[in-house]
């Protein structure tokens, strides 16, 4: 109960922040459109989808996962900022449940993340991306995306607690971009050198992207003789999420409760 109430308060805090930063809000609306145009039309004109199909339909699940991946950097920056500004210490000196704060922060991110995802889905629909296998599987895909995002924001929370300052977090956060690129999100992995292909296919991002393609019925589902995470994308994504959450939730909660000891 307390955790839930605090989560809502922290969601409110996040929304209040956005209200004071119309620029960020505009960026939240415009960025997806820019990415869709950039990747869909600029890169898309040169990339062949294996097994045929529209590149923009192939691309959208990649963009969904990539934006979910941004939760890692935004959680990392927010947590590092709170910590270096003393906000974390203030919360830790109050009778707030120490567990509630990291749960609240990641919960707040899930709410804003859902909002961002809705915008991106709308952008996708506008350029011809479609859901092919029914609403039920589409809702499942959104669930997978939110789970993936939630997992990433826990990873980011832990990293943010480890960092000494907001600046460090700021300068590390662009690294999530190459991390998302090392996957099947934008280009098929078939043509890559074997070692790179192995890295890309075992990247949890690839499993999540493949799971979304499968559930939305989008092109680019890999052949049956591919590597295990890509042929069992849903199981692989859920396993990845479970493993990462089991590792990073207790680590973050412990670190938050004991930071500075």
């Amino acid at each position, binding site marked *: 109960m307390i955790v839930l109430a*605090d989560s809502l*308060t922290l969601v409110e805090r996040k929304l*209040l922040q956005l209200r004071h930063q119309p620029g960020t809000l505009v960026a939240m609306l415009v960025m997806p459109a820019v990415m869709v145009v950039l990747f869909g039309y600029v890169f898309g004109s040169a990339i062949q989808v294996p097994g045929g199909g529209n590149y923009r339909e192939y691309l959208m699940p990649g963009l969904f996962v990539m934006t979910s991946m941004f939760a890692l950097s935004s959680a990392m920056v927010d947590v590092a900022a709170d910590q270096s*500004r*003393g906000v974390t*210490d*203030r919360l*830790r000196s109050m009778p707030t449940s120490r567990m509630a704060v990291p749960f609240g922060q990641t919960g707040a991110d899930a709410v804003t993340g859902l909002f961002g995802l809705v915008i991106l889905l709308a952008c996708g629909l506008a350029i011809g991306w479609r859901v092919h296998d029914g609403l039920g599987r589409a809702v499942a895909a959104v669930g997978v995306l939110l789970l993936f995002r939630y997992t990433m924001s826990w990873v980011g929370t832990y990293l943010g607690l480890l960092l000494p300052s907001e600046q460090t977090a700021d300068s590390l956060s662009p690294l999530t971009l190459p991390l998302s690129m090392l996957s099947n999100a934008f280009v098929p992995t078939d043509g890559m050198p074997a070692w790179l292909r192995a890295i890309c296919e075992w990247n949890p991002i690839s499993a999540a992207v493949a799971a979304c393609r499968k559930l939305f019925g989008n092109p680019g589902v890999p052949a049956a003789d591919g590597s295990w995470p890509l042929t069992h994308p849903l199981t692989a994504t859920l396993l990845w999420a479970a493993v990462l959450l089991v590792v990073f939730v207790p680590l973050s909660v412990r670190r938050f409760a004991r930071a*500075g000891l």
Partner: protein
Amino acid sequence: MDSPIVSAQGLRKRFGEFEALAGLDLAVPPGTVYGLLGPNGAGKSTAVRILSTLTRPTAGRATVAGFDVREHPGKVREAIGLAGQHAAMDEKLTGRENLRVFGKLARLGRRGARRRADELLERFELTEAADRQVSTYSGGMRRRIDLIASLLRAPSVLFLDEPTTGLDPRSRLEIWAIVRELVAAGATVLLTTQYLEEADQLASAVAVIDRGQVIAEGTPAQLKARIGSHIDVEVGSEDDLAEAGAILERMTGGQPRAEDLRIVTGVHGTAPSVPQIVRELDAAGVAIQDVGVRRPSLDDVFLTLTGRPAEAPAEQRTDEQPKQREKQEAAA
């Protein structure tokens, strides 16, 4: 004396090889302002962090409001407020929004948090700035809103870590006024400071900390009494030096030293008042240019106790000295 509301016995804190606290003992009586005074790195913040349950001591025992900080940190947190060394606010939110968010997280409830935020903003005269983002606040306003945020739960013990460092004299006076008001309302305040004058102005008892230990404790007056004061007399001509010196020696029992036309006499115990000195010298026909009794600053205390000057921050040192001089011009 009432039993202490904050107490520490033999607190130690190690960071790797480095011992930040080396057996700290404190006893703060309820309803007072207690000053922890020490130079950079003395261990003031570490002590505050242990007492406010942010850090665990390596050894030793501490209780706050009757609860052991190690065994019942939750109970301690319900009784305290903390304003750390840096203003801990969400810069993107307004002052009022910050207070509401923290108020809700402090279990005041939605309505309670709103009411308390408005009430505190009103009481501490921050209403005009309340609806601006904290990132636009001046240093003094930041400090004030931060202090207010530590009052959301009406704490019985308040920890203030260097509440006025880096503030201009006017903002410092405002913070001092708030502290005095809180104590008048029954709270206990433990504050750390590098400003010797601040402890002098606010605290009813002071612990001087150096290298993680209390090296002296007492009221500011007691500490000063250990050092004594100085009488400064400037005479009109050299002919008067000997005569004035003899009179001062007789009045104080000290050893007057002359430098040009100035005579400085160190006094232990209570110094004679300026009018007394003027009367005596005048009666003997000595022409006086200037008479002053300089009470020792806590700077002098620090120097005497450690053999080193306090390393107070440079920016505000210059304007501290004149205030500590009690001067009176006397025409010849």
